[in-house]
């Protein structure tokens, strides 16, 4: 491995790496736009200029391979001056409409200009006008003026998604990003172009204008969208969760994630959630506290003989939750009838070649492991017959967190509801559940953003994640629900406050007449 000096700091870098990678490894800041570790080298922004000892001209760090004994720096006056001017060149035709721009706050141009820029631009000519708010497809909007033509998005559609929708048209400062003959940018990875856009030229229609990024906090998590289990960042604030972005994880998802995974934040928010326990049957619902609901469900379970209980699992819960649930049902209640509810079994092995898998559960593998380690066999057979034959009096379902990936949900709810008692743990409210005939308990549970735990992805890789924020404070994790069902106590005091939903000027509504 060659040893090189970066700003005087000696480091050892892997063979064939480039100078910019050496800078990143050394933790030295270097200005750049077009270089992206997940894409090919374009070398067009000309900002990662470095001085290599022994070379007369400045070199771009992204296309210079390291050599043994090389000494590079980006702190000399020449480099600094060049980067200053390089940034000024970028701003010549940039509209500087930061107030309207959604990227403001996480913008490469803003950040790097603040760090490396000259602060005293000499440009006083009229700017080139291009079209704004161009609809590129179902997910992305383009602002041609803001674009600095780093070509990251073009390279992404060329190299990663291999869909080739985007291209650069025209020459010189009239160059602009566009799609060929109006063919929309429509693929399952389109929003990655928004992530890698260093400026606000490409914006997500879903997130556009909904929040300013500086109001958002981020938490690391694992995408529950499919069995790939991409590492993600969840962006939230006191009003709820706003978006999901990929987190670099070379072993699973690299730098990318799919658009389907980005939608997983939607069902987490207050609007679609079940906010309290519900006990009763059709038209006779009673909203009760979560504790009451879960305790009475537990009572019912303990009353029923173990052979008359059927436990139905979906692959949407964490390994830890499975462990506690299995422990309770298998070892305490001695229930033998456990079932694995696999949605769209015919698509389970589908794969789009990049990230997205047909198994839309984050933890199918984890559930299978749990079955194996508790010596149970999860299958789907006998369930229908058992319910119809009145063998199963009480059915407890660990319902899907993301209901949209269970296409047969309504049908199955109807089937389950033929049992005398149905206990349903669900994160989201569900209309079909409200209309079942039998005695039913609906117990709100936490979503992936609200709990800590681990998912086992399709490779068998166990990935831990931490709780981000709390949307519904009443919701329980399965482990907590099981504790309560078993008649034990949990510490309610440690539960965090939930978010308030859309921000209101709260005092106004409460003031009344003065």
């Amino acid at each position, binding site marked *: 491995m060659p040893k090189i000096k970066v700003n005087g700091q000696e480091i050892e870098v892997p063979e064939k790496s480039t100078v910019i990678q050496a800078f990143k490894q050394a933790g030295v800041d270097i200005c750049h736009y077009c270089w992206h570790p997940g894409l090919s080298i374009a070398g067009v922004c000309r900002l990662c200029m470095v001085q290599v000892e022994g070379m007369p001209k400045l070199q771009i760090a992204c296309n210079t391979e390291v050599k043994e004994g090389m000494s590079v720096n980006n702190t000399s006056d020449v480099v600094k001056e060049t980067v200053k001017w390089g940034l000024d060149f970028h701003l010549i035709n940039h509209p500087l409409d930061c107030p*309207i721009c959604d990227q403001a706050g996480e913008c490469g141009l803003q950040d790097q200009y603040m760090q490396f820029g000259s602060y005293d631009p000499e440009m006083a*000519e009229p*700017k080139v*006008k291009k079209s*704004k708010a161009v609809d590129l497809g179902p997910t992305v909007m383009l602002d041609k003026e803001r674009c600095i033509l780093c070509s990251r998005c073009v390279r992404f559609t060329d190299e990663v998604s291999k869909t080739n929708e985007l291209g650069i048209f025209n020459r010189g400062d009239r160059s602009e990003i566009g799609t060929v003959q109006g063919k929309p940018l429509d693929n399952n990875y389109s929003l990655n172009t928004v992530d890698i856009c260093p400026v606000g030229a490409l914006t997500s229609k879903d997130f556009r*204008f909904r929040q*300013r990024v500086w109001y958002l906090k981020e938490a690391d998590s694992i995408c529950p969208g499919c069995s790939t289990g991409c590492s993600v960042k969840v962006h939230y604030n006191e009003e709820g969760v706003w978006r999901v972005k990929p987190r670099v994880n070379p072993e699973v998802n690299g730098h990318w994630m799919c658009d389907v995974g980005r939608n997983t934040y939607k069902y987490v928010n207050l609007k679609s959630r079940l906010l309290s326990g519900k006990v009763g049957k059709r038209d006779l619902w009673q909203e009760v506290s979560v504790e009451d609901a879960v305790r009475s469900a537990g009572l019912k379970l303990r009353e029923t003989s173990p052979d008359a209980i059927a436990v139905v699992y979906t692959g949407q819960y964490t390994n830890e939750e499975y462990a506690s649930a299995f422990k309770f049902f298998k070892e305490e209640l001695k229930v033998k009838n456990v079932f694995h509810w696999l949605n769209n079994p015919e698509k389970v092995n589908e794969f789009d070649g990049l990230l997205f898998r047909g198994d839309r559960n984050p933890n199918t593998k984890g559930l299978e492991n749990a079955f194996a380690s508790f010596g149970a066999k999860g299958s789907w057979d006998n369930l229908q017959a058992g319910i119809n034959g009145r063998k199963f009096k009480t059915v407890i379902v660990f319902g899907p967190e993301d209901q949209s990936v269970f296409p047969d949900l309504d049908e199955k709810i109807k089937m389950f509801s033929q049992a005398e008692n149905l206990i349903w743990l669900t994160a989201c409210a569900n209309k079909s559940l409200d209309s079942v005939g039998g005695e039913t308990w609906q117990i709100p549970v936490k979503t992936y953003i609200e709990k800590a735990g681990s998912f086992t992805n399709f490779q068998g890789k166990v990935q831990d994640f931490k709780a981000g924020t709390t949307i519904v404070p009443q919701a329980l994790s399965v482990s907590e629900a099981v504790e309560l069902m078993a008649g034990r106590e949990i510490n309610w005091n440690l539960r965090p406050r939930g978010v308030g939903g859309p921000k209101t000027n709260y005092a106004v*509504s409460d*003031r009344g007449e003065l």
Partner: protein
Amino acid sequence: MSLVRKPSAAASWYLPGILAGMWFTFVKMIGNILNPKKMPTLNYPEEKYEYGPRFKGNHVLTVKKDGSIRCTACMLCATACPAQCIKITAAEHDDPTVEKFPISYEIDVLRCVYCGFCEEACPVDAIRMGPEWQTAGLNGSKFAYDIQQLAYRPQLKGGVVSVLDDQERHQAGI
């Protein structure tokens, strides 16, 4: 640090102090009756004080030349607001040159501390602190000002036009 002074023995007899105070008031009253022009107070509400033009009173949202709202919903005012009394909901405008505009802009003036940070934060002269200061109301909800109130209340006579015009800026090539 406060200084506690022991009252003198004479002062513990309150009557002389009261009488001295009444005498002073009486003299002033006579003086004011004889010479009302020198009176330092106003007969509010018949008479009102004229504040300087830079007085930070109730907020005004400025408008463009065509009368539409100038605000671009950048939320810098809401970010700068120390009382967190500004609530903006942004939306996509039909006109791509406008792009973003507020469909709702609310200021809770009862929380507002009239610091003027919003005015300073605004990059497009969309919000100003106006000269009005009489904000009485009978109901709490009267103090949540919406766009209608902030930009088009009758006192503004159709709206205050912002100094920053997008059309002009576009023509100047900015």
